[in-house]
């Protein structure tokens, strides 16, 4: 039986938006190939989530349940998904290019003896032979490659926003209980503890103000925080502080605030880049912002090429002056 299988992800019981996008993508590919698109929900107790997923017009929803699948233990998830794929032999396997997908997909692909393409922006079916054509940015986004790979299942991880999220339908998909044949022996990595840190979700902000290597003193980030407060007060919206990677490397900010290829990809109403040169790996994270404002001492920096408004200035002079104007 040939089908498209996608991995469902959720957070605190809420279906991930990226999963809804995958559902749309999988359904489209399924139509083109004339095969069904199914989803797999992995966990210990998945009934509720499976019910929810079943309302998006998929052919099937698999509940892959086992006590070892509680929480995300990569060894257990890879083992269980390997078992499922061997049972149902999907033609295509889709995952989000998320924390879970990035870790599970390569290992699963290896076990299934197939080739994976990560971080795809678009997918299509080759009309000649039905192969999955994978569009992927390379060299940080400086080039866009279309590739194909041999092997079954055809496997990819998909970047967020590649597809519109799916919408609910009235018909319910059939739900199948699958009990994977796994046991403790597959766990090779032991989790000692998880240490929660305060994590910001930059994609929830209306405005993001980011600082880069141009911010020479850690304390100067206070200026950005003040600016955020002033903008938030003036506009009544959510303003958050982000950064480029060197700021994370210096341990001035935690990686949840990093914007870019290996950080968060965001599209706020406005993005204010302070002391950020505009390297490609940073740009891919914020280029879809509706308005881009750049503050930089270097008139020739790349950030000005992609910005709507540019101010050639030292932030140390400009931001205090700007604060006065916003407050006045």
């Amino acid at each position, binding site marked *: 039986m040939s089908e498209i299988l996608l991995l469902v992800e959720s957070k605190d019981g809420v279906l991930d938006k990226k999963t809804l996008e995958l559902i749309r993508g999988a359904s489209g590919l399924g139509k083109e190939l004339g095969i069904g698109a199914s989803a797999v929900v992995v966990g210990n107790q998945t009934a509720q989530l499976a019910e929810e997923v079943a309302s998006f017009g998929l052919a099937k929803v698999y509940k892959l349940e086992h006590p070892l699948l509680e929480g995300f233990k990569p060894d257990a998830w890879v083992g269980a998904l390997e078992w499922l794929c061997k049972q149902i032999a999907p033609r295509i396997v889709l995952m989000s290019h998320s924390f879970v997908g990035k870790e599970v997909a390569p*290992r699963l692909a290896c076990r299934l003896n197939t080739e994976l393409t*990560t971080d795809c922006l678009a997918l299509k079916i080759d009309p000649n032979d039905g192969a999955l054509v994978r569009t992927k940015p390379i060299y940080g986004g*400086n*080039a866009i490659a279309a590739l*194909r790979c041999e092997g079954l299942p055809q496997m990819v991880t998909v970047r967020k926003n590649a597809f519109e999220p799916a919408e609910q339908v009235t018909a319910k998909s059939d739900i199948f209980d699958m009990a994977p044949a796994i046991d403790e022996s597959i766990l090779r990595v032991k989790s000692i503890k998880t*240490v929660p*840190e305060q*994590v910001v979700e930059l994609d929830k902000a209306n405005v993001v103000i980011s600082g880069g290597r141009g911010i020479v003193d850690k304390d100067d980030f206070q200026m950005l925080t003040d600016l955020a407060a002033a903008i938030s007060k003036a506009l009544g919206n959510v303003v958050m502080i982000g950064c480029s990677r060197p700021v994370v490397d210096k341990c001035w900010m935690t990686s949840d605030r990093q914007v870019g290829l290996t950080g968060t990809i965001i599209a706020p109403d406005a993005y204010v880049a302070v002391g950020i040169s505009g390297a490609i790996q940073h740009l891919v994270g914020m280029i879809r912002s509706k308005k881009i*404002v750049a503050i930089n001492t270097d008139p020739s920096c790349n950030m000005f090429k992609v910005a709507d*408004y540019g101010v050639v200035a030292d932030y140390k002079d400009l931001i205090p002056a700007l604060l006065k104007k916003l407050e006045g």
Partner: protein
Amino acid sequence: MKEPQIIVCAKQIPDPEAPFSNVTVNVEKKQVLVDAPDVISPYDENALEAAIRIKEELGGKITVLSMGRKVSDTVLRKTIAAGADALILLEDPLFEGLESNSVAYVLSCAIKKIVAYDLVLTGRQAGDWDSGQVGLILAEMLDIPCISMARSIKIHDGAVVVEKTVPVGYEVVEAGLPALVTVSNEVGELRYVARSKMLGLLRRPMPIPKWGLKDLGDNAERLKKVQLMELAPPADMGRACTIIEGSTDEQAARLAAVLKELR
């Protein structure tokens, strides 16, 4: 415990931080040309730094492995200057443009040939294709525990203890040795290597083994190349930028007006 034997996998790539004006996409030849010197992929430098810190604490030996069609030891000697003990180049015309699975296969053959190792470190992803696969696949092929996205790595009582970045913060995980860990930038940058030290090393003759496919099982059918169908430049990201001129006060006033209009 005995002194750990650490293998670091380091890929040579054109400098990924080169400005995008130095990158040209040749659509016909399906080639990306980067006008920049080759460097060690940045996360692999982080991996080396993690290895050196372990060696500083426990002693042991660090071997750097790099695979490609043509691998320059000039670029890789930096690893020796920084603190690695040995360098092995995996070089063969057949090693060009391989798919991730095949790259991991070649590396796994080399690692099996080295025999004694406790820890394999790779970068979280290579800075050219950003695949983020080879480390994880390599662990599967070597059949050893695999931990990804490390921000700190310690060896302790025959086990590796890793702080791994997770969406809610970090997770402390542990695995028996040998194990593979993929390393992220939070580990810290590779220590500074003085240019004079680099140059000195270049002059000193040093045996650098080069292993080709023949030395690694001669299994050419096992190697698959990336099947590139098309290559395109990215969509134009440029916008018409209004440069806000004037004195600082004037700039601030106009920018404030722009920001207030966002509402």
